[in-house]
């Protein structure tokens, strides 16, 4: 891990960090990764990859409608609202639209 990786990860997580913070993070994350890296010493060639820690599979819910929140309840935590909508600052750079 070097500071460029940290900068990239911070940007992806939308975290604003000072140069000093980035340096601290680089040091700390490197140390955490090194610690976890010890696991690489184990021979896992005969171990099935684990997709989930619980020995559970095929947990389903029937397709039956239930109660939703009221609009008022749904919007209660909204910092800003516009009528029945959540209001959010416009996304300025369309290139940041990674989504659709």
């Amino acid at each position, binding site marked *: 891990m070097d500071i460029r990786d940290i900068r990239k990860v911070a940007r*992806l997580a939308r975290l604003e960090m000072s140069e000093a913070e980035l340096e601290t993070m680089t040091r700390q994350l490197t140390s955490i990764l090194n610690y976890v890296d010890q696991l690489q010493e184990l021979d896992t060639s005969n171990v099935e990859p684990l997709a989930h820690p619980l020995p559970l599979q095929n947990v389903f819910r029937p397709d039956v409608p*239930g109660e939703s929140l009221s609009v008022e309840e749904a919007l209660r935590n909204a910092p800003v609202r516009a009528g029945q909508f*959540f209001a959010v*600052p416009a996304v300025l750079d369309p290139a940041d639209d990674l*989504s659709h």
Partner: protein
Amino acid sequence: MNTPYQIIVGLEVHVQLMTKTKLFCSCKTVFGAPPNSQVCPICLGMPGVLPVMNEQAFQLGLRAALALNCQIANFTKWDRKNYYYPDLPKNYQISQYDLPFSYEGYLDIDTSSGSRRIGIIRAHLEEDAGKSMHDESGRGGDSKVDLNRTGTPLLEIVSKPDIRSAEDAETYLRELRLLLREIGVSDCEMQEGSLRCDANVNIHILYSSDNGEEIAATPLVEIKNLNSIGSVGRAIQYEAERQYEAFQKDPKNYRFGKLLKTTAGWNEARGMTQVQRHKEEAADYRYFPDPDLVPVVVTAEQIEEVKRSLGELPSQQRTRLQAAPFSLSAYDAQVLTGQGRKMVAYFEEVAKISDPKSACNWLTNEVFASLKERSEEIDQFPIRAPQLGELINEMKQLGIKREKARDVYQKMLAENVDAKTAIDQLGYKPFDDNLLLDLIRKAIEGNRKAVLDYKKGNEKALDRVFGTVMRETKGMGRPDRIKQLLLEEVAKIEA
């Protein structure tokens, strides 16, 4: 079309599955509900909630995947795709990354140059995001967010880049829509967003330079905001030409591999793609397995059961209609199948009573138009298959001409009566040989000169007599029979 390049297209299609509730919670998925009225802590992404998979959504996904000839993974899991956007309240979308539940399928389409097989890379389940409405005033006002759609179950179907023209892309989408509707997976209404399509487009150009000839490929552009099947075709056509021009301007650098994939929005009003700058690095979604959802294991028995329940798929239907006893043309088979299974069943019933060609003609010439006019589906249509079959048979037997038959049909439709009653009430009576002979003899009497002219060798002269008889039958006599009887009668006359 003759172009100096080859279009290469892969389509990513999202369809909304026909469930009553969302993928991970029991909120409804009704289209057009008041904003933010179909949300709960789970789809709002509140901390501490637990999503649980909708069994019906998984079943519908399985149906679609099997109808698309996909392999089904016996083990599948869900992953978080992380990105920030105001209509994604959790800041991640639950999707499938490295272990999609289905992969490696295909869809056969009928193109103008014959049947083509379009490969399917994968089909996986994921949840939809909400809807943002941006301030159109240009003053940078707030965007409004409606989260009703968040968590709606989607099936993403990714084709291989096997599509070679705008027309084939449209055919692929129409075939996919028909298939998914027929097997009850999705209503595929593009206007309501239950079928959405992104097109990955680039072109291959035969390029000659100092280094000799080569096939040059342009960078990939993913076109979004395609709101109809027609706009998919138009956007692909436009984008291919745009890429060709961009390549001509900079053949060294406007190349696949030199520039990363970028996105473009399709502007329907202006009929053009608006391409964003090519990014310097690929999007990084930091996928990881979702710990809230447990894996799904599918057994071979389950797969067999779903396969058995699919019924006849449109491609199988087309093949069957072209074979005996129907022996329809490829075109007719395509047109009928395109109207759905109910229409095909109706056709088969009519064809069994009458004959396949007449049945098909009646459907495509009359019934389709009536249904459109009346905004009805074939199962609501008042003229049922046995009645239409009877009309066709009566028409043949009585030698009723097309226009008259249409009158009978309209009367049947308007007054809900059967073919025989309608024919009777319209006064279209059958003309047997005795009746016809009477008319023929009278006509010969009244046209002595014409008959003599005919006898002298003027073949055309008899047309006059024939026309008189036809007029007398009000178009209800069978022309071939009248001609035959007339010739027999004339032959008896001494020249």
